[in-house]
């Protein structure tokens, strides 16, 4: 099953999340948009971290995961916050 969500962050950028779900869990995740992320290669770490995530995960758990990847990969984002991304992922999961 394919699931998507997107948001235009007020004063910021567009974030889109496309997920492929199987058996209630994420198999493939793509995060896209016109934002800026440094270092750029860290987007893959964010996408990889979503694989295996359960469709019933809470928004708080998604936020904790996103914040962990931001911290562990020293990510700086412009155009969205970890909270914006977590909310978009959670909306796609729902």
């Amino acid at each position: 099953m394919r699931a998507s969500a997107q948001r235009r962050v007020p004063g910021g950028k567009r974030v889109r999340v496309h997920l492929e779900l199987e058996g209630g869990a994420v198999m493939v995740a793509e995060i896209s948009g016109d934002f800026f992320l440094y270092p750029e290669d860290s987007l893959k770490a964010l996408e990889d971290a979503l694989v295996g995530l359960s469709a019933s995960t809470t928004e708080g758990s998604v936020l904790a995961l996103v914040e962990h990847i931001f911290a562990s990969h020293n990510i700086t984002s412009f155009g969205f916050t970890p909270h914006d991304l977590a909310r978009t992922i959670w909306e796609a999961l729902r």
Partner: protein
Amino acid sequence: MIWRLLPFEHNRAAMNMAIDEAVCEGVAGQRSPPTIRFYGWTPSAVSIGCFQNILDEVDVEECRRQGVDVVRRRTGGGTVFHDQAGEVTYSVIAPEPEMGRDILASYRRVCGWVIDALSDQGITAEFSPINDIIVNGRKVSGCAQTRRRGVFLQHGTVLHSLDAGRMFALLRVDREKLAQKGLGSAEERVTSLSELCGCTRDELLSSLRQAFLRGKEHFSGDLTSYERDRALELARSRYGNREWTFSR
């Protein structure tokens, strides 16, 4: 630090992006000097940010029908239509310490050079973080920046004249973005130098060169043969490669 100014040239989209990367590699390997280049796109092209999903952003079939190149940049940010006749693109490539670690401050600094050039043409423009320059609320210039292997790259475009109808036929317009900015149509969101002051593209280019080089020791030079060969290789293997362009 002595900067190199490359001559203005038109290239295909893949080559333009490949030259930026080849120079970045040269700077990383201390084989190339910090470099400023101004350039055009022949044929006209659409570039997309490295994080964008191409099919969400671009009418690829319409681009193909009109003979417009489509290229994925190695920088983030949004979709840009590079009109062969209607814009000037710049790149600034330097060791990261030269431009500072503060990302927003460095965007502001380079955009300040563009604003100075517009001021030289009698236009009052302002920086609109993170990556736009606006005149009376309408965008006239956008840019994107990356930092890899200790090298800073910012490239951006300044609109000289605008074929808005063509631009928005090629791009999938984000209506929510327009609504947030209080604009009713995509055409209302952008403006150009020819609309604002009537200067020629050569006059704009001259003002940009002066503003970018102000206070910098510099020389006028060409790409080295190594840089050009590497750019040709990158144009073929990456920027002209469908796998990279359609990677997301």
